[in-house]
């Protein structure tokens, strides 16, 4: 049989136009790259590349601005949603989203996150939950599962010593200003496709002035978890998803 010809009309999938040529600094297999790609695709599909401001956090994805070719602001640790609030209020025609890890959004930035959601700011928070502090070397996050070993819970997270993990998505769902709260993952191709649809919906809703959206992405940190990328995806399914179940948590039509 003939070979598939490498030509434009046969093209099914290519690197998104808005993903830069910079090689990402993330570890091999890290979920960040996959989520970045989805964001780049959605912005382009919505035709908003010239009207988007992204806000990057402190954490591994601090350098998100090197990888998606839009204007960015790098916020202080935890403050991304305060930064985003001002940009959106001052430039309502702009798509404003934050990209934050679990340490950033749900530990040090809890106040900024909850209040941006409560006010119903028309911004989107993309919330990467991998249950660990990746950048600083794998310490316990507020999302770290009970029993999970990290650099600061070397014998496993013990609730008597370290407290319990919490689900900020479910907390936010109680807030009137938060109108779309969903939990996704990117550990399998089908999940990646669903996650993209969720990001697209969230971005569209923010542009329609429908209030605050949170897209939580249950993610891997294979370096922090000390597993191979493929084993991390399996561990995620077996351990993370029972505690952080996937699906829409709230959607106000």
């Amino acid at each position, binding site marked *: 049989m003939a070979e598939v010809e490498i030509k434009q009309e046969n093209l099914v999938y290519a690197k998104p136009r808005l993903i830069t040529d910079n090689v*990402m600094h993330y570890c091999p297999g890290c979920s960040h790259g996959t989520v970045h790609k989805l964001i780049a695709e959605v912005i382009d599909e919505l035709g908003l590349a010239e009207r988007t401001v992204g806000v990057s956090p402190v954490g591994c994805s601090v350098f998100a601005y090197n990888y998606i070719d839009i204007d960015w602001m790098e916020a202080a640790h935890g403050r991304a949603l305060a930064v985003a609030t001002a940009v959106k209020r001052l430039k309502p025609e702009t798509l404003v989203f934050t990209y934050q890890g679990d340490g950033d959004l749900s530990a040090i930035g809890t106040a900024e996150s909850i209040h941006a959601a409560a006010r119903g700011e028309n911004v989107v928070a993309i919330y990467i939950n991998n249950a660990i502090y990746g950048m600083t070397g794998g310490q316990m996050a507020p999302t770290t599962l009970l029993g999970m070993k990290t650099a600061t819970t070397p014998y496993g997270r013990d609730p008597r010593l370290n407290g319990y993990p919490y689900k900020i998505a479910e907390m936010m769902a109680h807030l009137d200003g938060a109108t779309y709260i969903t939990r996704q993952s990117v550990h399998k*191709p089908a999940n990646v*496709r669903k996650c993209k649809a969720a990001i697209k919906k969230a971005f569209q809703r923010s542009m329609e002035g429908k209030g605050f959206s949170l897209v939580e992405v249950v993610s891997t940190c294979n370096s922090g978890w000390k597993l191979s*990328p*493929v084993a991390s995806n399996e561990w995620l399914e077996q351990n993370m998803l029972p505690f952080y179940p996937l699906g829409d948590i709230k959607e106000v039509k």
Partner: protein
Amino acid sequence: MAKIKGTIVVDKERCKGCGVCVASCPCDVLSLSSEVNGKGYPAAQMAVPDACTGCASCAVICPDSCITVYRQKFE
């Protein structure tokens, strides 16, 4: 009988050899190369090219956007 066939092009220097694409391929087309790229990573490659349907699962999940997918219908 018409048959859909696919193929992929891997940006070998961008690839970090994480293997997530290999695990995600429904047709077991992919493997990691026995040779390493400039950064020391074994890039993804098509081990069984004839089995590829061009479904793009590998490219969709690739964190580093290094897989381009083509697909063609043969009558």
